[in-house]
């Protein structure tokens, strides 16, 4: 099949309906393509060929019998390898779980199964979703499809690269400080982090529980909206999940409504360190949005510069707590040890990679007696100030905030591995949203041609994914 290039959820479901192809044909051709293309990109950690073809076959049979199907039926999707699919390996990108088989389905997987989606396989990630480049996976380095000497971003680098290289029609990722939006920006695809609580995290390997959200990757904003709508909703198995009603406006925005939105541009996001090319690309987007008829005005988020420090206290603290379950007792690998205490030391020492260890040490330290107040409690207070900054801007009549996603386009592999602080700076524009629980989307700036992709970020009010998805869809069609 030669129409895999640029195949979207929308085109796929129309083609399936009009009998241009069957789900089985598309799935087979995708696996053929992955077999050759992924030797270079290394986006996938495992392929679920038998299961995917069986599911595609069921969709074709259902279609033949006249069953009415969801727009995700048969759609070949890639899943970040920190989400569980019953009966298959889920590594989290870590050696400590290299043979771990999931005993249940994550809620997002169960929801996609109800929609009869097809899972191609599991994608590579920075170990336990902890970095901006996907270089530190225990298994392989994923490469950017636009320039294989560069990183795809991270931590959901495998999912972003799989969609960008047409190996998957869409994908799921997770975002704790930018892990969906930064790779989307680097790879030239759309990626959204929903409002905290919009999507159940049951069956997602917890990294930092007050920040983690699952979200969609798509080739278009419309696809991201379709996928988001399918995975959102209340789940009694995640105490932070929230009952919301997302209507048709997610996928069918009205131009009249979108034109009434006011867009805020925060001065604190256009500072030293922002690459000139990124700044110019964002200026072009702002001009285009003005041309669409939206009001644009400058706004201020004065505590932005503290977000990085706050994040690198709160996140490792939660990481050190969450990852203590990986102790070699109930699952995962088990090293030889003469007693129980030894087993903990040996297992974590041998099973975790450098960044995971670094964050566990930092998190344990900021929570330890004598330092808790100075670091963790202080960070929680400043976190409130950061959240209030956004609330004040939204109260002033702004509906959507527009910013860059990352300070630079994709960087070279190896460029930032020696200095963690440099790597951490890649997330300065995405972190504040996680701290404030807000939805944000990365959308490719149009007209980049052969140049490296650059994404811009739209930030919405809580539960107003419809605003950022709507404006995104109007922008991509204009």
């Amino acid at each position: 099949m030669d129409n895999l290039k640029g195949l979207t959820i929308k085109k796929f479901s129309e083609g399936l309906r009009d009998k241009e192809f069957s789900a089985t044909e598309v799935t087979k051709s995708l696996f053929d393509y992955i077999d050759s293309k992924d030797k270079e990109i290394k986006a996938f950690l495992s392929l679920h060929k038998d299961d995917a073809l069986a599911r595609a076959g069921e969709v074709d049979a259902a279609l033949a019998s006249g069953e009415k199907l969801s727009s995700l039926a048969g759609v070949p999707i890639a899943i970040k390898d920190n989400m569980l699919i019953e009966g298959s390996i889920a590594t989290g990108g870590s050696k400590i779980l290299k043979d771990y088989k999931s005993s249940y389905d994550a809620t997002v997987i169960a929801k996609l199964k109800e929609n009869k989606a097809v899972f191609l396989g599991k994608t590579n990630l920075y170990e336990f979703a902890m970095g901006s480049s996907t270089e530190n996976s225990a298994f392989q380095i994923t490469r950017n499809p636009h320039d294989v000497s560069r990183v795809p971003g991270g931590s959901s680098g495998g999912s972003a690269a799989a969609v960008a290289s047409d190996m998957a029609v869409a994908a799921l990722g997770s975002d704790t400080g930018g892990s969906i939006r930064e790779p989307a920006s680097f790879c030239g695809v759309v990626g959204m982090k929903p409002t905290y609580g919009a999507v159940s995290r049951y069956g997602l390997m917890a990294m930092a529980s007050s920040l983690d959200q699952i979200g969609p990757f798509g080739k278009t904003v419309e696809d991201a909206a379709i996928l988001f709508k399918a995975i959102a909703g209340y789940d009694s198995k995640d105490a932070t999940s929230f009952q919301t009603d997302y209507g048709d406006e997610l996928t069918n925005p009205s131009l009249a409504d979108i034109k009434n939105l006011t867009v805020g541009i925060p001065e604190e996001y256009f500072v030293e360190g922002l690459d000139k090319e990124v700044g110019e690309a964002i200026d072009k987007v702002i001009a285009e949005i003005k041309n669409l008829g939206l009001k644009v005005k400058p706004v201020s988020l004065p505590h932005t510069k503290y977000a990085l420090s706050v994040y690198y206290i709160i996140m490792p603290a939660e990481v050190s707590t969450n990852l203590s379950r990986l102790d070699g007792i109930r699952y995962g690998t088990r090293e030889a040890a003469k007693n129980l205490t030894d087993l903990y030391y040996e297992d974590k020492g041998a099973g975790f990679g450098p960044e995971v260890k670094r964050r566990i040490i930092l998190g344990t330290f900021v929570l330890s007696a004598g330092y808790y107040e100075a670091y963790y409690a202080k960070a929680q207070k400043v976190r409130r100030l950061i959240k209030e900054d956004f609330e004040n801007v939204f109260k002033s009549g702004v509906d959507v905030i527009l910013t860059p996603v990352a300070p630079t386009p994709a960087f070279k592999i190896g460029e930032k591995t020696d200095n963690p602080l440099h790597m951490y700076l890649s997330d300065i524009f995405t972190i504040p949203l996680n701290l404030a629980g807000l939805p944000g989307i990365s959308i490719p700036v149009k007209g980049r041609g052969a140049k490296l992709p650059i994404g811009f970020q739209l930030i919405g009010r809580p539960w107003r994914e419809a605003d950022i998805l709507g404006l995104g869809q109007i922008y991509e069609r204009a």
Partner: protein
Amino acid sequence: MDLKVDYVAKLARIKLTPEEEAKFSEDLNKILEHFKELQSLNTDKIKPLTGGTDLKNTLRQDGEKIREADGSKLQKSFPDEEKGFLKVPPVFE
């Protein structure tokens, strides 16, 4: 230097190589230096934000709820077992 990596590694029950200890000590103390910027902010009157959500007490109605548990699926992921029980090394030598 505030952060003694060998001491914290003991608290976290994690074994580090001497190289890791040296590298983390350098990296983490640099990062702690960066955190000092927070001290310039007066937060005396600010309430800590303790989580990502304003939801409170999301408890279900008190009552019996029977969940079908299939222990065999969990047992399959045990690293070591005997007669269906999870096996661990001795607590005391």
